[in-house]
């Protein structure tokens, strides 16, 4: 007979008293879960547990408590003797889901998988401040709660109770891990493992209740809470772990702990880890741990976590060298972010310098402020190239021919370029509002039904305001909508302006006929539109069509408010999505044919269109207003490995990035590959399993990428040599 307490503890806690507010019930669910789920250590002797194991309910950072209906039958089979209990949980969650859905269906609509836009379907990444547990301990957080909860904020007692229950849950896990470590130490057959378990047992006597006294305890404590939260992003790891690193005199033990943690990051596909940066006085914040992390990334050569380095006016040359060497190792990381541009963009959102300088990255590459914000990451996406297509077909989708958006006029008879541009912008505005309305309704649902007391404890503002992380508690509650297919849209508009309205070589009717025919039988027209000057070659009068459109999109976003309590800000998506969306797009005036798997690579040129080298493309890309991109830009560059083999090459690389940043560029990523390796990897994938390339927002093993993305990587690589 299975111990009944082990069955679905999350559900048991959640439904223990349905008269309570949901936030408190989530706290009860987490505590019940912490008491009864199976726990273990992983191969790195770090805590390993799954909050959804043996439970129909699960706890995730983007959805809080939800029920996995597809697993019901599985549980029934496993625990037939508890049928009644399991069925009662299922029924209760069905009612709960209904109320969520009902709220949702009253607001917002979305085109879902039509490749035009989406909004709100993902709850979003964020970077809670794990340093709070590591450096203050749960007792320290309890103290904050005590201070805040005595201020008499109306209707907040249940919120604080939910937080306290969650802290108890963390402590419970810590105690159980201490006991398990003692047991494992006794069983251990070799001395090294035994000593690691003994260290863990000792650590859990202090953490997570009190500040970690040494780095090993800090790592164990961090990993416990990080896993409980759902393995998102560590954020500014070299900053909040530094105290424990410096306090630890055992050089061997702390490096060992860091290495084990790195393995765990890789095993779990941890998202984004950010190092270095500056404070509000531009003091450089790189430290010993910064360099240790870059070193370990170089040595291990894993594709995760996604590594980010922040640079600024006072970044030491030594760090630039470490960055270049790490890139030269071929892992496509780190991504380099320019504090000067990022902080400026955050300050434009009203975030003061003391907090803007605490930014880090999450997800693929979206900007967040560690421990202070919930900014969506990301709330939605709009495909700009699709806006051009919809405008040219009067709101009809040319892939699945039906009216998709609004009729903005039959452009066959357009008399001026302005008319064309206005139609595109109307389509863009329409899709943007669909995305943001839909995102806002999803935010409302999550605010009511998805409280996250764990993140509330680790995010500044929540405890102070007595409000949940999902419900406007954090200091900053902006939202992020990304743009896709940017240069495709701009190049299309430029070609129309030039060939139809300036040179009058073709009419709009001819163009639209050709697009409908996917250029079949329009060879000369296709060539002329294709051969038009393109974004990415540093030609200001061409570039402005692309940069102008995105700047306009960003301006629009800033006027739309989030449900959480901020405004929307824009960024761009990684290029693996470009290949996805490309399949949904019909023929375009930039010469692209229906479904052709090439869309612009984030803010850069359409693959193959940048034929004038990296300096020219940099000049093009600087035409965007980087200080408006509060969600973050991705500027992906590829270099031949040979360049990183000589000092002159490395110096030139640094010079390129520094020039770009001095001129206001926000972000720079580089893939360093040997082009022959890419071609060989297509033929003999087995020989190149470790070949890592950067795909816009993240790094991935080349041989595991889809064929479309592989082709896109190759096309770009060979273009830029």
């Amino acid at each position, binding site marked *: 007979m299975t111990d009944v307490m082990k069955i679905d503890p999350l559900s048991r806690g959640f439904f223990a008293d349905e008269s309570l507010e949901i936030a408190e019930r989530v706290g009860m669910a987490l505590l019940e879960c912490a008491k009864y789920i199976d726990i273990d250590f992983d191969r790195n002797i770090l805590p390993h547990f799954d909050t959804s194991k043996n439970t129909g309910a699960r706890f995730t950072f983007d959805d809080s408590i939800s029920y996995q209906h597809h697993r019901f039958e599985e549980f029934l089979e496993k625990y037939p003797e508890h049928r009644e209990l399991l069925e009662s949980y299922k029924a209760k969650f069905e009612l709960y889901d209904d109320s969520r859905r009902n709220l949702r269906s009253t607001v917002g609509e979305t085109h879902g998988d039509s490749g035009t836009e989406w909004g709100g379907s993902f709850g979003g990444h964020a970077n809670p401040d794990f340093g709070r547990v590591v450096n203050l301990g749960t007792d320290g957080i309890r103290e904050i709660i005590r201070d805040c909860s005595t201020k008499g904020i109306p209707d907040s007692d249940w919120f604080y109770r939910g937080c306290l229950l969650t802290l108890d849950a963390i402590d419970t896990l810590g105690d159980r891990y201490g006991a398990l470590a003692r047991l494992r130490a006794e069983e251990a057959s070799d001395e090294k493992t035994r000593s690691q378990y003994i260290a863990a047992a000792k650590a859990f006597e202090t953490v997570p209740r009190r500040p970690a006294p040494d780095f090993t305890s800090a790592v164990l404590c961090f990993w416990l809470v990080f896993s409980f939260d759902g393995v998102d992003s560590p954020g500014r790891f070299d900053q909040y772990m530094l105290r424990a690193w410096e306090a630890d005199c055992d050089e061997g033990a702390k490096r060992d702990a860091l290495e084990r943690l790195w393995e765990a990051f890789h095993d779990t596909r941890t998202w984004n880890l950010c190092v270095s940066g500056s404070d509000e006085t531009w003091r450089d914040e790189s430290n010993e741990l910064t360099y240790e992390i870059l070193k370990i990334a170089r040595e291990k050569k894993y594709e995760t976590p996604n590594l980010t380095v922040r640079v600024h006016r006072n970044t030491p040359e030594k760090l630039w060298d470490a960055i270049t060497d790490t890139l030269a190792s071929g892992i496509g990381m780190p991504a380099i972010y320019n504090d000067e541009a990022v902080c400026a963009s955050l300050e434009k959102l009203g975030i003061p310098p003391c907090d803007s300088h605490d930014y880090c990255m999450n997800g693929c590459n979206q900007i967040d402020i560690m421990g202070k914000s919930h900014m969506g990451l990301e709330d939605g996406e709009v495909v700009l190239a699709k806006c051009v297509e919809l405008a040219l077909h009067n709101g009809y989708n040319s892939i699945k021919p039906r009216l998709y958006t609004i009729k903005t006029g039959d452009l066959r008879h357009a008399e001026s370029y302005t008319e064309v541009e206005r139609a595109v912008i109307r389509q863009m505005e329409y899709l943007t509002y669909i995305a943001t309305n839909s995102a806002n309704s999803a935010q409302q649902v999550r605010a009511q039904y998805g409280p996250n007391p764990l993140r509330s404890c680790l995010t500044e503002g929540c405890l102070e305001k007595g409000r949940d992380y999902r419900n406007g508690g954090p200091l900053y509650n902006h939202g992020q909508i990304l743009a896709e297919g940017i240069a495709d849209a701009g190049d299309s508009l430029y070609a129309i302006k030039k060939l139809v309205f300036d040179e009058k070589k073709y009419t709009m009717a001819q163009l639209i006929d050709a697009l409908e025919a996917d250029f079949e039988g329009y*060879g*000369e027209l*296709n*060539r002329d539109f294709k051969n038009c000057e393109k974004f990415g070659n*540093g030609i200001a009068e061409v570039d402005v069509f692309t940069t102008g459109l995105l700047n306009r999109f960003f301006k629009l976003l800033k006027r739309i408010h989030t449900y959480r309590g901020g405004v929307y800000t824009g960024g761009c998506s990684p290029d693996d999505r470009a290949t996805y969306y490309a399949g949904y797009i019909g023929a375009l005036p930039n010469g692209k044919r229906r479904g052709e798997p090439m869309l612009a690579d984030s803010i850069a040129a359409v693959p193959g269109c940048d034929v*004038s*080298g*990296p*300096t*020219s493309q940099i*000049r093009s890309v600087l035409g965007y207003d980087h200080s408006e991109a509060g969600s973050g830009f991705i500027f992906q560059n590829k270099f031949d490995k*040979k*360049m990183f*083999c*000589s000092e*002159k*090459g490395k*110096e*030139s690389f640094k*010079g*390129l990035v*520094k*020039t770009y940043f*001095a*001129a206001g560029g926000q972000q720079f990523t580089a893939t360093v590959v040997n082009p022959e390796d890419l071609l060989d990897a297509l033929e003999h994938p087995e020989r190149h399993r470790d070949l890592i390339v950067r795909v816009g927002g993240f790094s991935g093993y080349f041989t595991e990428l889809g064929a479309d993305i592989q082709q896109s990587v190759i096309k770009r690589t060979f273009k830029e040599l």
Partner: protein
Amino acid sequence: MGTIFNIQKFCIHDGDGIRTNVFLKGCPLRCIWCHNPEGLDREKNISFFAERCTGCGRCLEKCPGRTIDGEGKLHIDRSKCTLCGSCVEACLNKVNEIMGYEATAEEVFADVMKDKMFYDTTGGGMTVSGGEPSYQAEFAMTLLRMGKDAGIGIALESCGIGKREFYAEAADLGTTFLYDLKCMDSYKHKALTGVSNDHIIDNLLYLFERGADVRIRMPMIPGCNDSDEDIANLCSFLKEHEGKYKYAEIMPYHTLGVGKSDHLGREVAFRAENATDADIARWVALFERGGIKVRVSK
């Protein structure tokens, strides 16, 4: 007005920092291994990329120099070509390309200056190259002067065949010279390049004497100028003038020029495989034995 065939941005191996290379058309030398055959003639040329041709025949209408054979393959008769460009206009597949175009120094320099911010941060600038820049001496000098006036780095890549005054004026401007040294044996030099090296060496000695910023570049062509003796001769010359040049660099042979010659319809007198790592190691060792530490151009 000058004739150029390329303005190449982000060049990092032709002088200090990040640079833009301006390639001027025309060269009096005929090196059998020429890497940039599109730069040989002072006049424009047409490149014909037969492998891209679909045989559609659109170009036949206006061009008397085109014929189509029984298999539907197009051929170009260069003797009839007037470089009118009608084929470029007609073709849908970029089969034809006119190599070279006329431009004023102002136009060229405006393009060069677009990358000024990169020169400023890296100590880079403009490198005037070719062909052989002294073949369009006035144009080349105008460009260098403009660069000097704009405060960017200026460099000249030259085979050394130009008039003495040309180098004197360039040196007055503070130009960096990327100076080719192909072979010390004058007869062999004539056989390989069409000219003797007497004048070339004289000019180089003149620049040495003036204390100009000179960097030596030595193309290494397997079986042509890379015998033990050739390299020993280079070494003794370099040894004699040590300290008068910043560095000496070898440029290993590569085959890119061969394909370009084929497309230009130009006879290729010399064909070989790309220099191998073993070739390069041998050259470096031979120079070392002669007491010269050389750089290897990537």
